[in-house]
């Protein structure tokens, strides 16, 4: 048993407490910081055990985070529900609790009971009136904790709370930022005839929020463009955003109707995260038909700049936000996609500025969006609407430019040598052939021939590690000339009926050649496009 020296005068003890937040601790992470603080608490109060339990985010459990004299608590990951046991009672009642009897009626945690602790004192860690956790100390011999002890421990607890809160917010901020950065597409997809540029800026006040954007292609060859904003801030909003983003991607594989996708995302959100809300805008670009279909869940409408110099907010019916519990059927609007136009999607952080009417900000946005390369549009929008003033809310911005390059320019497509690339190659090829005025028969034949050549490369050129296939299409007089290149070595076809592809390429083109090089294979195809 410890022999306690006579208590120090209160003034001396208070001086000791100042040691609890000295500068030497500033660089420690939260676990080390708490460990160091608990060691000092043990010395100042002459106790045998000291422990901190922190309230878990998104649950009502206290989790042992640091301990001295009862290290097992942390190692074994002790969890105490708020309201039950010793620590749970302190958190629930937000006040100090003294125990002079430690048994199963007063203490939930067997580690404390088995350790032979006789007396305990615990105080809440409070930050702005909210419970952050619990700090408790114990002695192996019976001890009557005095009012002075209680005040002293609470004083220490307040300092710990302050330091902990600061560390927690910092950890949460960096975690949210890391999550946000990992979820925003690092590289936007390369789609012939369409150009993208994007910006994301975290808010000044509370850092990262739940804004996100996403661009991906579907098996049908359509292109999905997403802009969304989860209500709330910080790590929690970033986590919900991450889930929404993958949910949306998952449903987009099953259908390409934006309203249907949003309806299912909404259903999932309401079922699994009923307290969350988000706005979202989903555009599916059908490059074959030059239209895009759009559906919005409480999200601001995109701004479109047209080749004639005019700019306007896209007009269509906007449905309620995701998670808003409205039984209404969501709507998809089909809008012609004008070649040469620029579509600008954004989150409300871009247009909301305290003390400035929304219409004025939208007007500024309409002026800034012009028919220019997507990167330039992003830059002018950020310059005009953000300037040098750090935004309060986070901002996401995505500009999509639909190219109006003249028909017949060479088209070079690089694709992963995977079966799923075939549909995209056909889509791009049909698009190009339609632009150069190819007849229907020529289109059918060329799509077929290129399809065979690319399927061959995908099936035979590479081993399991895969590779890429390049399709180069250009116009020579009335001929479309296609070269399909891979960097692999064709192996002999396996199975029966494999010569059929070669026969198809021979029959559907005016000229068909295969050139095997040391470092790959070229397939040349040529066919008139006017008959």
């Amino acid at each position, binding site marked *: 048993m410890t022999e306690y020296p006579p208590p120090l005068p209160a003034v001396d003890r208070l001086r000791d407490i100042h040691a609890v937040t000295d500068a030497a601790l500033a660089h420690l992470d939260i676990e080390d910081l708490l460990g160091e603080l608990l060691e000092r608490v043990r010395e100042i109060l002459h106790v045998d055990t000291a422990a901190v339990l922190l309230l878990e985010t998104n649950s009502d459990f206290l989790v042992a985070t640091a301990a001295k004299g009862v290290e097992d608590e942390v190692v074994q990951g002790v969890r105490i529900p708020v309201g039950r046991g010793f620590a749970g009672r302190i958190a629930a009642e937000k006040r100090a609790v003294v125990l002079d009897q430690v048994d199963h009626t007063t203490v939930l945690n067997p580690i404390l009971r088995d350790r032979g602790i006789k007396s305990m004192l615990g105080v809440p860690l409070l930050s702005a009136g909210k419970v952050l956790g619990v700090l408790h100390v114990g002695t192996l011999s019976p001890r009557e904790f005095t009012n002075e002890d209680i005040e002293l421990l609470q004083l220490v607890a307040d300092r710990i709370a302050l330091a902990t809160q600061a560390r927690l917010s910092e950890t949460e901020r960096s975690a949210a930022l890391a999550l946000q950065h990992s979820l925003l597409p690092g590289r936007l997809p390369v789609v012939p005839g369409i150009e993208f540029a994007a910006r994301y800026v975290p808010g000044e006040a509370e850092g990262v929020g739940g804004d996100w954007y996403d661009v991906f292609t579907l*098996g049908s060859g359509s292109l999905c463009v997403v802009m969304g904003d989860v209500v709330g801030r910080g790590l929690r909003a970033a986590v919900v955003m991450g889930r929404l983003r993958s949910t949306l991607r998952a449903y987009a594989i099953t259908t390409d109707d934006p309203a249907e996708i949003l309806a299912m995302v909404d259903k999932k959100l309401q079922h699994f995260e009923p307290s969350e809300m988000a706005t979202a805008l989903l555009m599916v670009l059908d490059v074959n038909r030059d239209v895009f279909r759009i559906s919005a869940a409480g999200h601001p409408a995109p701004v479109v700049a047209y080749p004639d110099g005019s700019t306007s907010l896209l007009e269509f019916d906007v449905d309620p936000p995701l998670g808003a519990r409205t039984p209404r059927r969501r709507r998809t609007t089909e809008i012609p996609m004008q070649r040469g136009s620029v579509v600008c999607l954004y989150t409300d952080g871009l247009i909301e500025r305290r003390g400035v009417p929304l219409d004025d900000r939208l007007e500024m946005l309409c002026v800034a969006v012009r028919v220019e390369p997507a990167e330039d549009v992003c830059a002018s929008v950020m310059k005009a609407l953000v300037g040098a003033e750090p935004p309060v809310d986070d901002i996401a911005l995505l500009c999509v430019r639909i190219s109006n390059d003249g028909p017949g320019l060479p088209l070079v497509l690089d694709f992963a040598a995977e*079966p*799923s690339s*075939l549909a995209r190659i056909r889509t791009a090829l049909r698009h190009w052939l339609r632009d150069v005025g190819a007849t229907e028969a020529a289109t059918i034949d060329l799509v077929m021939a290129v*399809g065979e050549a690319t*399927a061959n490369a995908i*099936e035979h050129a590479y081993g399991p590690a895969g590779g890429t296939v390049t399709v180069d299409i250009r116009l020579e007089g009335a001929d479309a000339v296609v070269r399909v290149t891979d960097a692999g070595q064709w192996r002999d076809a396996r199975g029966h009926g494999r010569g059929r*592809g070669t026969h*198809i390429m021979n029959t559907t083109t005016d000229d068909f050649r295969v050139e095997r090089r040391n470092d790959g294979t070229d397939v040349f195809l040529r066919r008139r496009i006017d008959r």
Partner: protein
Amino acid sequence: MTALGVTLTTRSDDASVLVVVEGEIDLSNARFVEDQLLAAITNRTLTVTVDLTAVSYIDSIGMRVLFALSSRLEVAQIGFKIIASIGSPARRVIEISGFDVIVEVVESDS
């Protein structure tokens, strides 16, 4: 049933099976199409009709599925018929690969 890019709908009575295919058939989904076609046919089937009217693309791998099916049906003495509009991409491939020589190809189901 729907897979990426293709949908198959089966209508059948005791003796005959009609499978309507919509979409595109290539390396990415030919296996799925084959499995669906085989699943639609039972031992009691007398005739099988595959409607390719709404197929906008089929490549040699897709044709391989049809060739394989036709030989299995021939062994089982089950009739086989294809519906494909003249001038359509599917009809073009069928003619190029000579499938119309071994299987009856019609313009519409009448």
